[in-house]
C-alpha cells in the first residue's frame, strides 16, 4: 500500500499522481519505471517515473487514461492508496556528455522524458526539446522544459502551436538545425517512437527509445515484455526499457503491444474515460 499525496488531471485525459514511496524515491534514476496495481483486484501496469523528491519520499507519475487500470488510477484521490507500487525497475538512461541531445516526447512521454532531459542538461549537454500533441491545450510542463532547453519545437495536429501536422514534420525540424543532434531520445506512444526511429535511421542519427510493451512482473520472470532487438530476444523490463530505436523490430512490437485490445474492452470499466482522444496510434493517423 502506497499513499497518494496528490492526483490531478493536468490536461484533458492526462493525470499527474504523486505517490509516497520513500525507497523508490531514494533509488530511482532517469528512464526507470515502476509497476503499479491500483487496487487489490487490479492488474499490474508499468508507468515511468516523471519526477521524485528524495526528501519527501515521493515519486510523480504522468499517465494517460486509456483503459481499465489507468481508469481506476484516475479515480483515486489524495489520501487514498494504491495496492502496489514497486520499483525502480529497468535500467536507467546513460547520462554523460554527448554534445547536443534532442528529446522528443508526446503523450505521457512529455512527463517521463523530463528527468532524462534535466539530467542530461546537468551533465553539460545542449538540449533540444520536441513536443508533439494533437493540440496546444494538451501540452503540459512547458515551464519545466524552458529553463533546460536550448530550443523547444512543438508539433500540433491543428497547428495551434508550432509546426502543423504530426511526426512526419520531424525531418523539417531536423533540417532546420545547423547540425544534426548527436543523440535523439524518444519517449511516448509506440508510433511516435517507431516513426522517429524510421526517420533518424535514414539520416544516421543515433536514437534511443523507451519501449512500453505489456508487462506483468517487471523482473524478468514472465517474458511477456519480450522484444526483438538487433535480431535477439530481449526482455524490456530487465534488458531495457531503453533500446537503440534503429534495431527494434517495430512490426512485431506493435503486434504484441495490441495483443489484448479485444479483451481490454470486455473488462468492466469502473469509470468512463474523461475524453476519448487517444487509442493506440490513432492520434498519428
Amino acid at each position, binding site marked *: 500500500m502506497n499513499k497518494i499525496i496528490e492526483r490531478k488531471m493536468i490536461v484533458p485525459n492526462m493525470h499527474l499522481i504523486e505517490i509516497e514511496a520513500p525507497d523508490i524515491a531514494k*533509488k530511482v534514476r532517469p528512464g526507470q519505471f515502476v509497476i503499479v496495481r491500483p487496487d487489490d483486484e487490479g492488474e*499490474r501496469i508499468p508507468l515511468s517515473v516523471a519526477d521524485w523528491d528524495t526528501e519527501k519520499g515521493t515519486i510523480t507519475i504522468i499517465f494517460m487514461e486509456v483503459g481499465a487500470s489507468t481508469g481506476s488510477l484516475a479515480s483515486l484521490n489524495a489520501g487514498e492508496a494504491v495496492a502496489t507500487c514497486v520499483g525502480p*525497475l529497468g535500467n536507467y538512461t546513460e547520462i554523460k556528455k554527448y554534445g547536443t541531445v534532442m528529446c522528443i516526447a508526446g503523450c505521457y512521454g512529455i512527463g517521463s522524458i523530463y528527468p532524462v532531459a534535466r539530467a542530461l542538461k546537468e551533465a553539460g549537454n545542449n538540449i533540444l526539446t520536441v513536443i508533439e500533441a494533437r493540440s496546444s491545450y494538451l501540452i503540459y510542463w512547458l515551464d519545466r522544459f524552458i529553463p533546460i532547453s536550448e530550443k523547444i519545437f512543438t508539433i500540433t495536429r491543428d497547428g495551434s502551436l508550432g509546426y502543423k501536422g504530426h511526426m512526419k514534420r520531424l525531418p523539417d525540424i531536423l533540417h532546420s538545425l545547423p547540425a544534426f543532434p548527436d543523440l535523439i531520445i524518444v519517449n511516448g506512444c509506440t508510433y511516435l517512437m517507431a516513426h522517429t526511429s524510421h526517420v533518424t535511421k535514414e539520416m544516421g542519427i543515433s536514437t534511443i527509445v523507451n519501449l512500453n510493451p505489456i508487462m*506483468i512482473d517487471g*523482473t524478468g*520472470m*514472465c517474458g511477456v515484455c519480450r522484444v526483438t532487438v538487433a535480431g535477439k530476444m530481449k526482455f524490456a523490463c530487465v534488458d531495457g526499457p531503453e533500446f537503440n530505436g534503429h534495431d527494434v523490430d517495430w512490426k512485431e512490437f506493435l*503486434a504484441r503491444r495490441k495483443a489484448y485490445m479485444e479483451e481490454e474492452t470486455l473488462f468492466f470499466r469502473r469509470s468512463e474515460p474523461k475524453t476519448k482522444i487517444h487509442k493506440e496510434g490513432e492520434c498519428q493517423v
Partner: protein
Amino acid sequence: MSDEKIEKASKIDLDRTDMPKQPPEIRRHNFNEVALGYTEELAIKEAKRCLQCKKPRCKTGCPVEIDIPDFISCIVKGDFAGGIKKIKEKNCLPAVCGRVCPQETQCESKCILTNKKGEIAIGRLERFLADWEAKQGKIDIPKKAKPTGKKVAVVGSGPAGITVAGDLILLGHEVTIFEALHRAGGVLTYGIPEFRLPKAIVAREVDYIKMLGVKVITDFVVGKTRSIDELLEEFDAVFIGTGAGLPWFMNIPGENLNGVYSANEYLTRMNLMQGYRFPMSSTPVRKHMKVAVVGGGNVAMDSARTALRMGAEEVRIIYRRSHAELPARLEESENAEEEGVIFNMLTLPVRYIGDERGWLKEIECIKMELGEPDASGRRRPIEVPNSNFRIAMDAVVCAIGNSPNPLVPSTTPGLETTRHGTLVADPETGKTTRDRVWAGGDIVTGAATVILAMGAGRKAARSIHEYLMNKG
C-alpha cells in the same frame, strides 16, 4: 524366512487405499482441487497397512528425514495431533508437501512394499494430518526463544524463504522477508495452480510465519529497490531464496507471435493475477480454443490442465521424448490424460506460423526418435529427417524450463555463480561466497522441488543461527 515372518507377510494388505478425486469430466471445467483427501476412516485404513519396519527405508527416501513410521503409527492410534507434531519436527510445510512432493521417487519408492506395488501412500497420509490440523482451527504457536537482538533479511518468499524465516524467528531472531511480487509464496502462489494446490493453503503457511512475528514486505525487488549490500548494512545476515524464475524459450522462428506464452506468463496470469476470474479480475486473458504445451514436466502438465479449465477444446502436450521419459509426476500426467489432454510424444516444434495480425495460427513440428542415452541417462531424441508436419493451434505455452533470475547475482559484487547461473553455496550450510550471505532452494540447485528448497532452508537456518550466536 522364519515361519513367524511368513505368517506376517501373508497378512500384508497390498491394496493401496484410493484417495477420492473429482471425476475427470467434472473437474476439467473447474478450478477446485482435484484430489479430495482421505477421510479419517480411509487414513486409518491406509495407516494400518504399514509394517512398522525396524529399519524404515521410507525415511531414507525423504529429503528431510521425517519419522514416517512414527507418524503413521499415531494415525493408527487415532492420535492425529501427535502425528502432525511428529511431521512438523522435520517439515514445516506438510499441507504443501503432502500434495506436491514426488513421493513416488522419494519416500514411497523406498517403501518395502513397493516391489509388490503396494507401497504405503505416505504423501496422502501426510496431507491428511496437515488438513486435519487446519480443520481444528486452533493453531499451536510454539514457544519462541528469547530475543537475540539479531536481524536477518530473507530475499524471496518461496518454500526456501518461508522455512528459513520460520526457523529463525523461533530461535529468537528478528526476521524480515522481502518479496518482489505483491503476494508471498513464490512458485506455490504464482505457479502451481489452484486445482493442485489451493492458494488458501499457501496463504495459511504465510499467515502462520507472520503470526510468529516474521515481517513480510511485498513489492520489494532486491537488487532494484535495495541491493544485498544495502541490506547488509541493516541486517546481520541475509538469505537468498529467489528461485529459478527466468523462462527459457526455444529460439525458433515465430516465438514472439501473440498467443505464444512462457509457462510463467500463462500460469502467473491465471494464478497470481486471478485470470481465471476474468473479466471479473482486470488482468486480460484471451480465450483460446486449441492450446499446445511444449514440455513434459509438472509445469507443462499444470499449463495444459489450466488451459482445459479455461475452456480450450483441444489441448496437446508436445514432448520430444517418449512417455517413459516424461519428467512430470506420474499422478499428474495421468490426471492430465484422464481430463482429455492429448499427448504428442516424440515431437518437437520447429517453427510457429502466424496470421496477418501477428497471432499464432499453426505450429510446424518434426518427428523424433530415441537414440543413445545422453548425459542425463535418458535416451537422446534425434530428428527424423523430412518428417515435418503442421498442427493448427491458436496458442502455445512454452514449458521447457527456467533458470535462476540474474537480478540478485548481477547486482551483488563477490557473489559467485556457476556456468548455469546458479549461486555457488555450500550444500551443507548454504553459505555463499559472500560473508554473511546464505542461499538455498532453486537459486542454488536450479529448478528442483519444494521439499529440496525447504530442506535447504532448514540447513541454512541452522548455519545462520550458529553464526549469529557465535558472533557475540
